[in-house]
């Protein structure tokens, strides 16, 4: 039935069939075969992603618990880590550097802690996003699922992490005489918008990080610069007050997404932090940044869907 040719390959006498003479593409079309690993349309991609919503949620929870599974104190670290973080920042900026000017002292501690927690939410989402694909190549190469599941799942993990931090935050609020009231509900839309914004960033950096793993080394510096420029440990208007700069400079600095989300959460939670600290149109900017990052990030990530896993 077969015969060895001079170059070592074997010519096989194929049985006569009605498909004789069809090219591969024609044969595939006849039996409804599709190109393996081709990128689905945007609508189909959203549908597939929705189908994996349980996976996204379960994966984020699994990652969250796996984080401290080797530590002796276990899940206690979920709360202890943000608490220690806040303590360090208070020691350096509140006590050593005295960055609290313009803010009453019973407002400053909640102000600082809220800023640290909210910024950390964005920061760790971006850092997790950079490694979402490049750090999970094994999973990407082994199983088939819409790749956007990974960055979204990591952003969701950070959201759950933030909820643990919120427990610490409530204790600190009460300790500094900001008691729960109706305005606390404003935290929900603010964090929801920030979550969409973070997911968009995570998607963007997941694609960039899959192509250029070097970003994992570079991004911590970029993010630290962003943190110091966003007024995590000082109030932007108070800092610029005696600097003789036009007032729109403060507005522009406060419209940066990290500052917007921090200010909104502070405004919602802290008793003495009223709307005079907020830049104009702050909710519009919060919504705008979320929609912009979310849509751009999703489309940008989807455009390279079929190329993840190479390298």
């Amino acid at each position, binding site marked *: 039935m077969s015969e060895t040719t001079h170059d070592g*390959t074997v010519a096989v006498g194929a049985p006569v069939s009605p498909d004789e003479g069809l090219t591969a593409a024609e044969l595939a079309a006849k039996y409804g*075969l599709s190109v393996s*690993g081709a990128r689905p349309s945007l609508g189909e991609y959203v549908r597939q992603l929705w189908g994996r919503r349980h996976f996204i949620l379960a994966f984020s929870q699994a990652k969250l*618990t796996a984080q401290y599974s080797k530590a002796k104190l276990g899940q206690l670290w979920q709360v202890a880590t943000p608490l220690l973080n806040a303590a360090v920042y208070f020691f350096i900026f509140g006590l050593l550097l005295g960055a609290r000017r313009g803010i009453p002292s019973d407002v400053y501690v909640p102000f600082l802690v809220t800023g640290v927690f909210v910024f950390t939410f964005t920061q760790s989402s971006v850092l997790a996003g950079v490694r979402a694909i490049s750090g999970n190549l*094994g999973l990407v190469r082994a199983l088939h699922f819409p790749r956007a599941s990974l960055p979204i799942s990591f952003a969701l993990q950070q959201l759950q992490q933030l909820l643990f931090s919120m427990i610490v935050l409530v204790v600190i609020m009460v300790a500094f005489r900001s008691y729960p009231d109706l305005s606390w509900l404003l935290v929900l839309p603010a964090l929801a918008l920030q979550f969409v914004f973070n997911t968009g960033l995570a998607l963007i950096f997941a694609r960039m990080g899959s192509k250029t793993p070097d970003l994992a080394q570079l991004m911590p510096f970029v993010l630290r610069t962003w943190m110091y420029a966003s007024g995590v440990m000082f109030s932007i208007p108070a800092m610029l007050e005696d600097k003789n700069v036009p007032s729109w400079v403060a507005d522009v600095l406060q419209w940066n997404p990290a500052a917007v989300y921090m200010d909104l959460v502070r405004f919602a939670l802290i008793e003495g932090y009223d709307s005079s600290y907020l830049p104009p149109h702050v909710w519009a900017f919060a919504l705008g940044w979320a929609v912009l990052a979310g849509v751009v990030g999703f489309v940008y990530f989807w455009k390279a869907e079929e190329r993840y896993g190479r390298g």
Partner: protein
Amino acid sequence: MADDKTGARVPTVIADDLHIVYRVNGARSGRGSATAALSRILRRGEERGVRTVHAVRGVSFVAYRGEAIGLIGSNGSGKSTLLRAIAGLLPAERGKVYTDGQPSLLGVNAALMNDLTGERNIILGGLAMGMSREEIKERYQDIVDFSGINEKGDFITLPMRTYSSGMAARLRFSIAAAKDHDVLMIDEALATGDRKFQKRSEARIRELRKEAGTVFLVSHNNKSIRDTCDRVLWLERGELRMDGPTDEVLREYEKFTGK
């Protein structure tokens, strides 16, 4: 090729002049010093600091429903790469692969999360494959029993990092085999299990074939290829060297490897 019994054979996988190229960062000169990296960046020309490996070179074949196809060849001949490309996990440099539905690849390195318990891994693996929570709950006990993880005590509730390599491989295979696949590709996953487990998996592969699926099997064990496959593809240096009935190809292959 397998004999034509029914007359109407339905193709499930078509590879058309497929080329796969890996790009490896920072492996150009083999020297890893910072100055070498800097001079590479400064030097213009072809892609900097990137080396390419042409792993699969122009492979074409058609696989049909109900076939079990073995892939043989020496180490590094491109077998695993070819399977990943069929599964759509590696993008093709040139050429195309057409498939019926979504092929599933089951490899030795199929990553599960080592920090999590076997139990959690079963649920996550099932969800990632697109099974619903109810389906997973339904098959959970079957998966555990099939893997045999709990034969020596309650290991399923321990983190996977505590498993031996054989146990981990068995659990991975059991998870992947729990789903009915149109096209299932098995990459040396059977080599790690003990004899009892190999028997069970061979039976499961036959079952999957009966459900009108196509099975690809990579193995260095010619006996398990003979037992399960009716057609064999022989890859050497990324090229398809031979494609035919199991006995013929294995005879040539054994001659080639000097057995």
